[in-house]
């Protein structure tokens, strides 16, 4: 029913704003009309594949093309326009799409120059505004087994890895988001949408406001994004915001100036949320319920929720709990041999199964073999997240580190997060990230904007908390951590700095 409700809302043709983007509002009426235009074009174009690629943008045309694909029940494949055009073409090829929507004239031109005869490139100018008031979306059933979208992530072999999300996965997740008593959204809400469309938190920030008949405020994706976010939060009195923690890290030096009394929900996902950052942020939005969300793309946006309470002991090593699984999913912990861990506070790899969880990757048996396992007792298929977690006595999971980041230095197994935690205790350190350089040495990167930062003092402080084998061999101070396209800390870039 989730998707049907979105198109029922659009059919009402009200003058209420569905979107704010490109410095103007677009009503539900305008959105319906333009989505209908795109749907007409898609229907008329011959295509060998059902899949429709969309070069992502922060503009109305791109969003309407995506909604048209959703209406027609054609899987959409968002591809980041900031990728090199060759990579865009590779992803489109992997997805088998022969139709691509592109609102960026430069990217469209570059795609044309690649001369891919099977690929039909559709630009906004080619989509005539022909929809009339009498036209209306036909509200249809959605086959849960059909694909809704495919997201491509970087694969270890260099070949993009496709995550195919079905209507069952997407509908199950979104329905939970609007029925869970933790969240009470209404048409009076103003949602902010700050994610690039190939990063799946955008699914929440776009679809939920359309479902409840609210307005979605889209942050421009060029220039200084965290300024755009702050201006939008303040100017438009945003009431619902899903953030990635790095945004708040950028705002951290200015916490004393920030007051957002209208913010009702402040959710975090995509990276570890630190308790020290949360405590400062909560003062900036005194009326907001703060939630920490967790979930790999394979579990459809997020699959665990933790409501953060100001006076509770929410964190371990300054990392806030990721909470309990949503009702649609089951979580288990397994050890290195795939055996079930049932004891509390024992670390293992977190695995999920349920309506929100994919069963396989897009045409990639090697990735399937590596990332899925059968439950030792029930034989149900579970997705292995690669995240090392443990369960506390309240039934909440805690993220410890990535399985890839579990390291042994000089024969000792240690947790990089613990070293980072103690480094962040230094008042001059804004962010701390440890990378393993080799089996004998790790390097600590600290982000510090303060000239008072003293490397010797930090080393001495670490030595007072940690055993010798956990002391980084080298400390490198940066004015700013590198971030990837999804605004997560770029550990690969940091590793490169150590070589």
């Amino acid at each position: 029913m989730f998707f049907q409700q979105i198109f029922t809302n659009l059919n009402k043709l009200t003058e209420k704003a569905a979107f704010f983007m490109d410095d103007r509002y677009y009503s539900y009426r305008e959105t319906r009309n333009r989505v209908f235009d795109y749907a007409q074009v898609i229907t008329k174009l011959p295509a060998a594949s059902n899949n429709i690629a969309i070069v992502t943008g922060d503009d109305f045309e791109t969003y309407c093309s995506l909604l048209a694909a959703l209406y027609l029940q054609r899987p959409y494949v968002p591809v980041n326009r900031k990728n090199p055009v060759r990579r865009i073409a590779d992803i489109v090829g992997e997805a088998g799409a022969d139709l691509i929507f592109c609102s960026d004239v430069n990217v469209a031109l570059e795609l044309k120059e690649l001369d891919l005869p099977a690929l039909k490139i559709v630009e906004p100018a080619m989509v005539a505004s022909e929809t009339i008031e009498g036209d209306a979306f036909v509200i249809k059933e959605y086959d849960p087994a059909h694909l809704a979208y495919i997201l491509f992530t970087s694969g270890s072999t260099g070949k993009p890895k496709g995550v195919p999300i079905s209507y069952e996965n997407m509908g199950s997740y979104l329905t939970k988001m609007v029925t869970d008593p933790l969240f009470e959204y209404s048409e009076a809400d103003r949602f902010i949408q700050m994610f690039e469309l190939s990063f799946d938190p955008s699914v929440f920030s776009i679809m939920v406001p359309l479902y409840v008949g609210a307005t979605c405020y889209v942050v421009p994706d060029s220039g200084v994004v965290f300024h755009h976010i702050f201006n939008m939060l303040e100017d438009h009195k945003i009431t619902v915001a899903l953030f990635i923690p790095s945004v708040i890290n950028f705002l951290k030096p200015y916490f004393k100036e920030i007051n957002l009394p209208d913010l009702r929900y402040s959710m975090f996902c995509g990276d570890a949320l630190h308790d020290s950052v949360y405590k400062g942020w909560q003062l900036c939005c005194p009326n907001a319920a703060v939630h920490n969300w967790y979930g790999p793309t394979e579990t459809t946006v997020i699959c665990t929720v933790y409501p953060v309470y100001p006076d509770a002991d929410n964190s371990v090593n300054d990392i806030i709990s990721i909470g309990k699984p949503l009702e649609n999913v089951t979580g288990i912990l397994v050890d290195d041999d795939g055996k079930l861990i049932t004891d509390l506070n024992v670390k293992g790899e977190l695995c999920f199964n349920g309506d929100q969880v994919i069963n396989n990757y897009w045409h990639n048996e090697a990735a399937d073999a590596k990332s899925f396992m059968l439950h030792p007792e029930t034989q149900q298929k579970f997705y292995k997240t690669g995240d090392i977690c443990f369960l506390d006595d309240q039934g909440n999971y805690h993220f410890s580190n990535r399985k890839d980041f579990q390291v042994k230095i000089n024969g000792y197994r240690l947790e990089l997060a613990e070293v980072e935690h103690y480094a962040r205790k230094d008042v001059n350190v804004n962010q701390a990230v440890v990378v393993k350089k080799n089996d004998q040495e790790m390097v600590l990167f600290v982000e510090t904007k303060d000239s008072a930062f003293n490397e010797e003092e930090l080393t001495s402080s670490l030595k007072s908390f940690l055993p010798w084998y956990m002391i980084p061999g080298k400390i490198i101070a940066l004015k700013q951590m590198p971030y990837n396209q999804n605004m997560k800390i770029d550990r690969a870039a940091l590793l490169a700095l150590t070589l």
Partner: protein
Amino acid sequence: MEETEIRNLLFEIFRNTFDYTLPVTDDLSAEKVEKWTSFTHTIFIVEIETRFGITLSLREVARFRNLGDIVEAIKKHKA
């Protein structure tokens, strides 16, 4: 501090921060400079504050549309 002096120092910081070799003008904005992102911007602001000996508020920096706006803000702080 004279406006020309402010502009010259700001443009020097700008060129160094973003490795910018083209002519610098007041109307240059983050949208027009590839390396001017959320991440490098933080470094740019810290450098401005250090070199000019001022502290800029979030409301000031979040409203900067271009280098000309930054010149105006520095002028107010140095007045």
